[in-house]
Each structure stands twice: as C-alpha cells, then as structure tokens.
C-alpha cells in the first residue's frame, strides 16, 4: 500500500443473505434469495483523486458506500480508509470520512444551517471553540455564509446540497463519499457544486468517491471511473483511456448537393461501412482503427466533392453502453 492510498478496496464482496425465517413472522422480507451485491471489487483512490462510480440501479454502488461508512459489513475481501478497516474500525473510519448522502432529508429541515453543523460537529467530537471557528469557514467554502441563520426548509435544492457538502467537510475528512451529490440540483448549480468539489480535491488532496447518474458530470470531473454492473467491475481506469480503447468516432462528410451525398453514401456502403444521409451530409461510422484518410482514398473522384470533414466523438453514454454490452456478452 502506497502512503498516498486513502481508500483501498481489495476483492470486496457482499452477499446479502435472505432474511431469517424467524424474522419473517414479524415483517415481510424483501429478500428471500441470496443476492450478490458486490463481487470481488478492487479499487484504490489516492489523495487528490476523484473516482466516479458509474452503473445502473443494482450495480452495487450504494452497497459499496454503505460498507465504507459502516452501515453494513462485507462478506469477503477488505475495505480500508487510511489503513483503518471499515468493518473492524468502523467508529474511527466514520471520523475520517465525510459522507454526503443523496437526500436532503438527512438534514434537520426546521433547524438552521448553523444548528445542523453544530449538531454534527459535536457528534464528531469537535471542541466548542474549534467548532465556532470551523462553521463559518466551511459555510464560506460552500458559499453559504449569508444562509448561516436560515432554516434549511427555506433553502433551495442547490443550497441544501452545498450544506450537505459543508457538513461532510466540517470535521476535516481525508476522504469524501458523495452519493449522487447533484441528484435534485439544477444543471447550473450542479456545475458549481462539482467545480467546488474539484477545487477542494486539488487544494486539500482529498480522496473522493462519487456516484452519479449524470454522465456529463462524470466526464466533466475528468476522474478515474469505475464502471459497475451487478456487483462486478466492467471497467476501471481514466475516461481518456476508455475513449482510446472504445471510442469509435462518427465521421461526417458535408457535400455540395444531396445527389453527391447519396453517391458518397453508396460508395461507403459498397466498402461495407454504415452510412446515413441527411440532406447534404453523410454520417459514417468507420470500423476498427482505420484512418479516415484510407476511407477518403477509397472514395476516389467523389472525394473532390467533399466540402468539410468532421469527426464526432462517441457520446460517453454510448461508450459506456458498449462497455456494458461487452460485459453482458462476457
């Protein structure tokens, strides 16, 4: 383990057991069969790194987060934060991790921003004097100074998200676990929140685990990504490498007339490529690592009628879908 490694998961596995029969007398069970929520997940998040956990519902993201903050235990492998075992040293782990749950409801809605932070700070064991200095600092960090004495119920969704972040930052954690931090936040506020998180990561060298369904946000974070499906890791690495490996850009040829466009499309189809005509442009997804020049060369005299050539990178959504497709086939 490197000195900079903050969050380390090694072969992390969680098998949810069915609810024991005696318990079903008192309450209807939601689990009657064992469910493997995590299956041998390996991950290292170093200080100053963001790792985005991406996956459909049931991928195992929440289970991973719940193991890290001690709300459930793993059935195999290990999860450590700053060398502390998430299962055995749960109480200490909860002191070095800042947890930002996805829901606003985790805040005391009728209390003020300051009161919410005071309660959290005291439970974290922060001395009163330290807390008195720290609360204005974190509120300023998340740009909520003006809302210090405001009742949470009166704050906007974006402000509440920032308050949840302030609460996570209050005790000065080394690792942040952010469960869909921008869930109910509008795109502009979400952008501000993510920029803030990125700045904090750079300045304070925090290790951040973040889950989000908004793929454009994951891309904006320029982070390490862990693509998960049914408890397994389908891809682990940075998004640039993912693009290099999986991106199949679409090439668009813009021609003078629709007739030229159809002629080019026929030629491309004859080369075994998929081509779609839209007025004077032809979109073509070229196969493999073949350079665009090779495709152009095979167009022969038709290439002279091409006015523009544009390359459209694959949207991250499609890229991830391809990775999942491979995972399903495997």
């Amino acid at each position, binding site marked *: 383990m490197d000195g900079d490694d903050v969050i380390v998961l090694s072969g992390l596995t969680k098998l949810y057991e069915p609810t024991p029969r005696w318990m079903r007398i008192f309450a209807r069970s939601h689990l009657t069969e064992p469910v493997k929520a995590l299956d041998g997940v390996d991950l290292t998040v170093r200080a100053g790194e963001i790792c985005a956990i991406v996956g459909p519902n049931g991928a195992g993201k929440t289970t991973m987060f*719940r193991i890290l903050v001690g*709300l*459930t235990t793993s059935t195999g492998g290990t999860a450590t934060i700053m060398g502390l075992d998430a299962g055995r040293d749960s109480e200490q782990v909860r002191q070095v991790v800042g947890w930002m749950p996805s829901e606003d409801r*985790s805040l005391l809605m009728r209390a003020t921003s300051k009161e919410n932070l005071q309660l959290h700070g005291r439970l974290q064991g922060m001395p009163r004097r330290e807390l008195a200095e720290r609360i204005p600092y974190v509120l300023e960090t998340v740009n909520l100074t003006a809302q210090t004495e405001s009742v949470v119920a009166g704050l906007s969704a974006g402000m509440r998200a920032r308050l949840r972040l302030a609460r996570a930052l209050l005790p000065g954690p080394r690792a942040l676990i952010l469960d869909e931090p921008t869930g109910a936040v509008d795109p502009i506020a979400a952008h501000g929140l993510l920029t803030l998180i990125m700045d904090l990561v750079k*300045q304070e060298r925090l290790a951040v685990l973040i889950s989000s369904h908004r793929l454009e946000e994951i891309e904006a974070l320029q982070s390490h990504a862990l693509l998960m499906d049914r408890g397994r890791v389908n891809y682990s690495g940075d998004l640039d490498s993912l693009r290099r490996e999986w991106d199949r850009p679409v090439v668009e040829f813009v021609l003078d007339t629709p007739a030229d466009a159809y002629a080019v499309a026929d030629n491309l189809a004859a080369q075994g490529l998929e081509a779609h005509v839209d007025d004077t442009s032809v979109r073509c997804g070229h196969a493999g690592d073949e350079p665009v020049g090779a495709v152009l060369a095979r167009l022969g005299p038709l290439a002279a009628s091409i006015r523009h050539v544009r390359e459209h990178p694959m949207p991250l959504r499609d890229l991830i879908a391809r990775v999942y497709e491979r995972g399903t086939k495997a």
Partner: protein
Amino acid sequence: MTSVYPATVNKRSRFTKVVDTLEAYIRIDLVEERMFPASTIMRYLAVVFPVLLYYFQSTFLTISDELFMTMLIGAAVIAGLQDALTGLTGRLNFAMERGTLETYLVEPVPWALIPVAMNIWRSVTGALLACVMVALGWLLGGPVHAPGIPAALLVLFLGILACNALGSFAASFILLFKRGEPVVMLYSLAASVLGGALFPIEVLPVWIRWASYLVPHSYVIAAERRLLIPGTPAEGLSPLAATLILAGFTLVTFVAGMFVFDRSLRLARRLGILSI
C-alpha cells in the same frame, strides 16, 4: 484554515464520547422542540386536563383528598414513564421515516449509546410533567407529604431508567422489523392496569397479580403513594424494598437491553437492513 482539520484520527476517551453524544442529542431535541413551538406548548399544557378530570371526578363522587391523590399519583407516574417508554420508539421511527437515522448512525459515536441518548430529553420532560401533575393536585388541595419528595424523585428517576432499558428492547425490535409501537403500546397499556395506576394492585385477582411484579410501574407507583400521601396504610412493599427491587430490575434490564440492542445492530448491519 484548511478543509483537512485533524492530522490524525481524533482520539476521545469513552467518557468524552458519552458526554458529547448525550449533549448533541439533547441539543437535537431542543432544536426539535423549537421547530414546532405550538405543539411543544400544547404538550405541556395538556397535563392540566387529567388533573382537573380526576379532581372533578373525586368531587362528584365525594371521595377523599387522599383517594384523589392516589389516582393522580398513579396517573402522573404512568404519564411520566410513558414518555420514557415510548419516546425512543417514536424518535427512532421519526428518524427512520425522515431519513435522518442514517446520518446519526454515520457519526463516530458508539451505537449502543444511541437509544439512551435519543430518549434522554423526552425522559426528563416526562418526569417533569409527572411532577407538574402532582404539584397541580397539591394546588387543588390534595395532601402532599413534603419530606417524602426527595425520595419520591429518586424512585421516579429509577423508574425512568428502567423504562429506558425496556425502551431499548423496543428499539431493537424497530431496528430489525421497522415497527415497534404496537409492542410498546401493548406493554404500556398493560403496565397501567398491572401497575395499578388508579387503584392499589391488591385489588387485582391473585391469579394475575404476579404479572404486576414484572412491570416497574407497580414499584414506582406503590413507593410514590407511600412517600407522598400522608397517612397511607403501610401495606405491601415498603418504599425502601420497592426502591431496591426497582434498582435491581433497572440494572438487569439495562444490561440485557444493551446486549439485545447490540446484537440486533450487528444482525441488522450484516443483513444490510440498518436504517432502511
């Protein structure tokens, strides 16, 4: 200042953690009392009416002031212990439904302490309301033996502790099955009958009287009556014996309650149903 505040894990002694946790939860309760000021005021005002009810009933039935106080003390103890007994289940359910329980559990405090910490304010206010009811009875002419008040407060305190311990069994039930009120409500109603809220337990048939000795309410009510009502006949358990039994009961139920709560937490954590 920087966002990274402690250089290492902030080590606190067990005692400091207990104090911090109790203080923080009392603060949460105070904030919640302030969140809904009208309902808080009404809750405190509501105690006036049972006192008036028993007062006018005793006037109508032309029963003695001592009998009026016998009923009032029983009702006051039941009301005071009710808060200690049901407060925790109410709070846990509220936190679970509102989504704050997960946040409480993620704090670095010993989980076994949470039931006690969550219920401390409610228990204190419950005891206060019981005292206010007895004081109102005294204002209405009911006899109160002033020298017995300190011992009566000690007995009430022990009763509240015992009910808190019983409350942690209910908390375990909530953790595992997500519903605890029916159990507590059933116990609470049974306790008011078996504890002899409005009558001495000697009135109960012999075949059921043994059950009275299983609820702390019986000991608290019997001792309070003997301590606070002048001239109460020295029948049944003496206040000292009731206090000693109550102390033993509290100790056993506290240890057992904490053990069961800890086991339930472990099971809920393993099954992944904690706070869900």
